[in-house]
């Protein structure tokens, strides 16, 4: 079952500025979906539409199989969210901030301490949230989003302002939420490296269009397909001729012979051919683009 499904979601801020163009987002239940794209790609606009913060202009939004327009309150009861900068009442303490929402969600009073402990803010006491660091505010926002034990968590760039340790903690927390509570998580970021260790599925958006949507392993397969295999040999010219005979395109690289798009079997076969034709092979090395590179390639293409 899909937690979120959008069809043909299109949004314009003016007649000349189309921010989203036919977005078909599919977030499967119980998975972590990384929504990637550079700044200004349309990530936040998409998330704001999904949460009903922006009036929908065209397309369909279904959450938990229900239409957002007709079942807004019922749907929002099961969603926790953090959109852009933290929404924290600076003149209130962390516990008071949570009480504001606990009243609305009707969650038990004990849940306030539970979520504060969960995000590591259990000891903040009477300190006003306005005096918190950005990282602490971010964690308090996550606590607010988790207060009512949502089925779906929508997080827009939640690691903004967090130090490396904070990012690791956040990653662990989100993994735990998925594993232990089965929460579906939609998390946006402009850095693949930041969420590649966390997500199951990836959607890449650029200039208001989805350029890639699939599992992380599908994206990784793309990475393998575009990786280079470099051969260091005793005779590059002879090796190049052998490659040409087998119609393998070569790219010379730092005194080595490099080619792309080879799987492991093809590499072994080429190695055998070279040895049989009297060329000594000193080293074979796979030069993989990192996922960030693939992400940028997808965007550029």
């Amino acid at each position: 079952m899909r937690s979120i499904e959008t069809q043909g979601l299109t949004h314009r801020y003016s007649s000349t500025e189309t921010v989203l163009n036919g977005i078909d987002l599919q977030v499967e239940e119980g998975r972590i979906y990384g929504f990637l794209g550079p700044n200004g790609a349309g990530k936040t606009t998409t998330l704001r539409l999904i949460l009903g913060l922006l009036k929908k202009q065209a397309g369909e939004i279904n959450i938990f199989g229900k239409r957002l327009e007709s079942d807004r309150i019922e749907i929002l009861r099961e969603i926790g969210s953090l959109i852009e900068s933290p929404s924290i009442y600076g003149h209130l303490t962390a516990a008071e901030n949570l009480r504001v929402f606990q009243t609305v969600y009707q969650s038990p009073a004990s849940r306030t301490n539970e979520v504060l402990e969960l995000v590591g803010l259990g000891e903040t006491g009477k300190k006003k949230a306005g005096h918190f660091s950005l990282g602490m505010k971010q964690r308090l926002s996550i606590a607010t989003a988790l207060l009512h034990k949502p089925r779906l968590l929508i997080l827009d760039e939640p690691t903004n302002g967090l130090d490396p340790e904070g990012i690791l903690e956040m990653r662990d927390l989100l993994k735990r939420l998925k594993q232990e509570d089965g929460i579906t998580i939609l998390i946006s970021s402009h850095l693949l490296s930041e969420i590649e260790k966390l997500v199951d599925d990836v959607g890449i958006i650029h200039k208001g269009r989805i350029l890639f949507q699939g599992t992380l392993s599908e994206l990784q397969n793309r990475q393998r397909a575009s990786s280079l295999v470099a051969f260091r040999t005793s005779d590059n010219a002879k090796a190049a001729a052998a490659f040409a005979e087998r119609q393998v395109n070569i790219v010379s690289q730092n005194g080595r012979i490099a080619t792309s798009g080879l799987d492991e079997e093809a590499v072994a076969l080429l190695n055998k051919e070279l040895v049989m034709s009297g060329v000594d092979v000193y080293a074979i090395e796979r030069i993989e683009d990192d996922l960030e590179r693939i992400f940028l390639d997808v965007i550029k293409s």
Partner: protein
Amino acid sequence: MSFIRSFQSEWLKRRRSLASWLIVVGALFMPAMTLLRLLNDREKLPELYAQENFWSVIWGQNWQSMNLMLLPIGIILAVGLVTQIEYKNNGWKQLHTTPQGLTTIFFAKFAVIFVMALQVFLLFNLGMYIVGVIPSLLFVSVPYPAGEIPFGLFFEKNVHYFVNILPILSLQYLLSLQFKNFLVPLGAGFAIWLAGAISLSWKYSYLFPYLHGGIDFIVGGGQLDLVLPMNIQLLSLIYFAAFTVAGYALYMFKKERG
């Protein structure tokens, strides 16, 4: 039930906020000034406190400034500060992703502003009483006020003055929901109030909704000879209804919610 929960949630937000401090300071400002004046004129106090109409004198002195200036300006500021709690803390987007109807959110916040206005009236009346009593406790020569408090009349006037401020509450709420910049509703509010104050003696001055309290007070006290085409409270209620409906419609049709 959802409205009550929403109201409770909104009420929590005003805790320790600037708006809640303004309510206290604004309500007690005039009584405090009156106390200073009474203490300054110490030698005249025994005579004043012996008067039968002592409470009416204190009441009149306090309400004149309150109706004409302090109440309208205080409301303009307080309503702006209540909605700024959301703007300043990026709160609108979180509020609008809670499982509440938009109508509930609109009226729960409005109800908080209403209750805060009631707090002003309560504190102000209490402040006037305490200030009236303090000199008699401080000085042996000053007796407890001789005249009785005309509770019925004061209550009736309080109700009238409260109705008179409703157009300010509703129009300021409308403006504050539409403009993120605090200065816009503040500037517009001051402009409307100032226009009314300048044209107070004009025969159509009642058309300016922010001076209804002032007009009611000075026409009622015989300080201004102005013929009103209708009961000023009725006019206040008409303005209030119109501004509330307009504010609600504009809020409901907003394209962006935080």
